[in-house]
């Protein structure tokens, strides 16, 4: 399969190039650790290549075929990495999703991806030769899951060439070297960890250090010190939480900390530098695109600039603009798409530019500033939540008449629910917990008499927030602005 061309006509490095590099490290740097997990398991580059080959042979034996989509419940363990890579090595399409997803969530995304194949992460023990490249035409895709805005998750089909190219360019501006040890604190199945840790670290011949997910924040300082991590990848909320236990740690090895998922508060950035000596660098990305912009070390200022190869522009009132507007982005390589939702894919592109749903500015130097979000999607601790998905499941519960979820300045991510007297907050939570991952469930589900509406039927949030103030509910510790926001 020929590599897709980039914007300058050169061929992009693709899945084959990625695996070529992995096998090169196995030959040239066999004893260097490729992956170290918090549970003590580790694989050298030689061990990783052998484990991928063995597991690929096992998957082939189990009937996995090139081009087939294979759902993998992913956690931050060595076996997850081996299984993802082995699936790709046989030419199949790894579909990464949260190992903690509910049965309903798993069934829904497998339906969208039109697959019945789900493989638990494993490391096959029987040695095997590296799999022969699949004969073309074979899909060069992988699939990641993110929240939607229409009640359905988005299963994002991405091309390896686009992912590898973007990841390598990010690694170049982040100055990754083979001596780096990159601590991953967010879920591997998210694009942030996949594009900032998994692909660029292995391509560079560096070492992935996997923190458990979710981590205990007070343990992160020790983990950084013990693993002598040189790069940390996390979200603003976790950096802030880890600071509580950080003052006693001296971290001379730590040189670069990457933050994404939500805006990075200046106070967290300053406190982190003070406590660790390492600088925190903001990154702006999207599941569909990868790393869009990065406040790279050594740049003129600490604002996010487009990662090389990425282009961005804004659109305002139906016209391309140079002013603040909705951000549209292009990355080299074939565009991503939404599996099972072709109409949504079509709506997401305009003349080849991807509609990010974010609001902001981009200037001639490539500086990108995100100022808001066009859609209702909510961000909770860096994780994206679709309000429509949550509201529809609450409304489906017996005794519930109406529901709206929202993020308040003081109250955080909450729901207002109109229901019969027999419905309780604890009962609602038990109902939702069987259907939704915990991070999608509002921190509080406030039972109210009605959802006040305007004449046009729009819910008036003001009186609902006032209800909380009147009840004194807002006296509970407010969620910080960096934790929960409507974007």
């Amino acid at each position: 399969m020929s590599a897709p061309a980039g914007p300058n006509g050169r061929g992009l490095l693709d899945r084959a190039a990625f695996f070529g590099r992995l096998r090169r490290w196995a030959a040239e740097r066999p004893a260097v650790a490729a992956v170290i997990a918090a549970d003590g398991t580790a694989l050298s580059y030689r061990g990783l290549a052998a484990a991928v080959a063995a597991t690929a042979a096992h998957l082939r034996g189990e009937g996995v075929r090139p081009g087939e989509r294979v759902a993998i419940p992913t956690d931050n363990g060595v076996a997850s990495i081996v299984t993802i890579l082995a699936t790709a090595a046989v030419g199949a399409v790894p579909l990464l999703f949260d190992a903690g997803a509910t049965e309903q969530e798993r069934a829904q995304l497998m339906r969208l991806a039109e697959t019945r194949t789900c493989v638990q992460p494993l490391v096959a023990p029987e040695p095997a030769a590296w799999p022969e490249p699949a004969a073309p035409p074979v899909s060069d895709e992988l699939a990641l899951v993110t929240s939607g805005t229409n009640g359905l998750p988005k299963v994002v089909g991405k091309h390896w060439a686009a992912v590898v190219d973007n990841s390598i360019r990010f690694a170049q501006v982040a100055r990754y070297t083979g001596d780096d040890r990159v601590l991953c604190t967010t879920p591997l199945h998210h694009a942030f960890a996949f594009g900032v840790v998994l692909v660029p670290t292995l391509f560079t011949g560096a070492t992935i250090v996997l923190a458990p997910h979710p981590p205990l924040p007070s343990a992160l300082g020790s983990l950084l010190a013990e693993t002598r991590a040189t790069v940390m990848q996390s979200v603003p909320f976790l950096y802030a939480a880890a600071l509580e236990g950080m003052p006693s740690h001296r971290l001379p090895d730590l040189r670069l900390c990457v933050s994404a998922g939500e805006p990075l508060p200046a106070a967290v950035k300053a406190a982190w530098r003070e406590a660790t000596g390492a600088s925190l660098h903001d990154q702006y990305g999207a599941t569909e695109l990868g790393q869009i912009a990065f406040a790279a070390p050594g740049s003129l200022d600490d604002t996010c600039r487009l990662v090389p190869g990425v282009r961005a522009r804004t659109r305002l009132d139906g016209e391309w603009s140079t002013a603040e507007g909705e951000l549209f982005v292009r990355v080299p390589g074939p565009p991503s798409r939404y599996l099972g939702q072709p109409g949504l894919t079509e709506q997401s592109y305009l003349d080849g530019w991807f509609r990010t749903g974010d609001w902001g500015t981009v200037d001639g130097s490539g500086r990108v500033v995100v100022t808001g979000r066009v859609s209702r999607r909510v961000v909770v601790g860096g994780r994206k939540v679709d309000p429509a998905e949550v509201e529809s499941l609450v409304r489906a519960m017996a005794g519930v008449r109406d529901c709206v979820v929202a993020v308040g300045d003081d109250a955080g991510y909450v729901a207002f629910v109109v229901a019969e007297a027999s419905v309780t907050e604890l009962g609602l939570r038990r109902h939702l917990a069987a259907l939704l991952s915990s991070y999608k469930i509002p921190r509080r589900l406030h039972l109210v008499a009605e959802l006040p509406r305007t004449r046009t039927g729009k819910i008036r949030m003001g009186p609902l927030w006032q209800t909380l103030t009147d009840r004194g509910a807002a006296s509970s510790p407010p969620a910080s602005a960096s934790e929960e926001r409507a974007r």
Partner: protein
Amino acid sequence: MEIHNTDTAGHRDPEALVRRRLAERVGDEVAYGIGVDEAFLMVGIDSLDLMHVVAQLEQDAQVQQIAQADLWAVARSIASLVAYIGGGTARPVDHAAGEEAR
């Protein structure tokens, strides 16, 4: 859990302390209604809220040494949090069950 050096700092009822701190994040009904061994996962309490609760309890009980880097190893239920802050000898905590959590 044995390598914790914990001190409940005068809190004679660690379970009451745990429930109080949990109530500050998710409200009284959930914090006082959930069973002592009922997994937080079963009522959909988010890891982000539990991180706040653990951080507060670590200060309350002056937890000196962190045994594990996995949140679910210490914050699976009321009972496991009580054990974490040093009051857990009266109640069993199923460590393996943490692997089910998300």
